[in-house]
């Protein structure tokens, strides 16, 4: 919120900022509630089912009911579990998921924090979630949970490397880690000025690695219901389980917004004559398309095998993302400088 950010901060100003952040928290919780509903509906339609339609009109209150059910459900902690770590893990999964949202800009003037290391902040904090998953798997003292947690950690660290290297091309083109500057660098009037075309290799690697980081189908091996019961959160019940799910969907929000900012031109209109539409509309449209895309591939692809997963990450995505970095650098050297 820019007006407050340019003045020296008072306690009153900090309180206003805090209240805005609380409002934003409720927006994100609302997004998560209806993203889950939307996901179930969309996948239902794609599989020629109806999806949730009982609770409220069109089943609109289904997720709300689910959340209340989780809230009043008895919370069991297994006797053999490491109590402290068991309680800590869901909170640790959620804290970075919400904290990364601080740096995402929505329009030229609508953003929370304008960090000059915004992108670095994002990738650094999102890496912490891996710890929470290993912690949850280990503290449960359960075979399935431990194996699920280990698999998940291996998958997430394997795909984090291509993910963070694939955005280096974007940083090269814009010369900044500030997410607002990155969007400003894509301002050419037309949609081919957005990074997804000049950085098509990086874009594809980023999308594949991001889906894997989100632990979503076709990379949802950590939660493979048919082989690992539920993976790292098998012993969790009630609201602690809800926090693992919540952080997963908050990351869907974060990744969709980040992809929009990095590759799809943020709030810029696809053509100059469409400039009269406010930037926030373009941002939300692109955001919604990516969220839909994530649900679409969940309904389309089968889960891949663990050996294919690791092979893809290290043998294909990592060399390709490095190649992209040097291709971009050579291009800048030859044609721009």
């Amino acid at each position, binding site marked *: 919120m820019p007006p407050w950010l*340019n003045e*020296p*901060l008072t306690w009153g100003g900090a309180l206003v900022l*805090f209240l805005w*952040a609380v409002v934003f*928290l409720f927006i994100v919780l609302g997004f998560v509630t209806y993203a889950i509903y939307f996901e179930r509906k969309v996948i239902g339609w794609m599989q020629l089912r109806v999806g949730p339609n009982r609770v409220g009109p069109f089943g609109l209150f289904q997720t709300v009911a689910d959340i209340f059910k989780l*809230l*009043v459900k*008895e*919370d069991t902690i*297994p*006797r*053999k579990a490491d109590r402290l770590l068991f309680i800590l893990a869901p*909170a640790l999964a*959620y*804290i*970075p*998921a*919400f*904290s990364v*949202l*601080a740096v995402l800009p929505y329009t030229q003037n609508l953003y*929370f*924090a304008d*960090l000059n290391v915004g992108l670095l*902040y994002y990738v650094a904090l999102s890496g912490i979630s891996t710890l929470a998953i290993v912690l949850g798997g280990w503290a*449960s003292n359960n*075979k*399935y949970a*431990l*194996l699920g947690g280990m698999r998940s*950690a*291996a998958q997430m*660290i*394997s795909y984090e490397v291509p993910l*963070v*290297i694939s955005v*280096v091309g974007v*940083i*090269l083109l814009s*010369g*900044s*880690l500030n997410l607002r500057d990155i969007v400003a660098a894509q301002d050419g009037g037309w949609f081919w000025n957005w990074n997804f075309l000049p950085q098509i290799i990086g874009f594809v690697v980023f999308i594949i690695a991001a889906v894997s980081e989100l632990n979503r189908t076709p990379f949802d091996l950590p939660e493979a219901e048919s082989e690992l*019961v539920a993976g790292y959160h*098998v*012993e969790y019940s*009630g*609201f*602690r389980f809800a926090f693992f799910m919540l952080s997963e969907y908050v990351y869907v929000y974060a990744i969709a917004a980040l992809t929009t900012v990095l590759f799809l031109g943020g709030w810029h209109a696809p053509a100059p004559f469409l400039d009269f539409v406010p930037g926030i509309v373009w941002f939300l449209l692109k955001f919604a398309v990516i969220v839909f895309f994530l649900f679409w591939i969940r309904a389309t692809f089968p889960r891949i095998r*663990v*050996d294919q997963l*690791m*092979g893809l990450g*290290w043998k294909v995505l*990592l060399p390709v993302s490095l190649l992209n*970095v*040097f291709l971009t*650098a050579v291009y*800048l050297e030859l044609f721009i*400088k």
Partner: protein
Amino acid sequence: MENYANNYVVVAIFIALGILLPVVALTVGRLLRPNKPTNPKQTTYESGNEPVGEGQVRFNIRYYLFALMFVIFDVETVFLYPWAVAYNKLGLFVLVEMFVFAAMLLVGLLYAWKKKVLKWNSV
């Protein structure tokens, strides 16, 4: 400069809210939910069977090798980020330098590949 610090206040507020929500939600939940622990409820879940042996079983050493590889390439990204930001102000020399650096790490990747570290066989 004032502006700069304020942005980190926002980040601190977000982290504080991130901590606050689980605390508040779980405390409210504690007041709402029933709490009737019984012995069977608190046993380790193993698809309905009696749990066999230890929970913290031995797992594949391969995870450790992946962790090592991750450390190597994550350090590379730590060097790539500032390099990419400053690239436009630097000359051809830094490009060659970074290429040499990445090539050395790629040799490591090829070695791991050759040693079948990246091949997943379930043991």
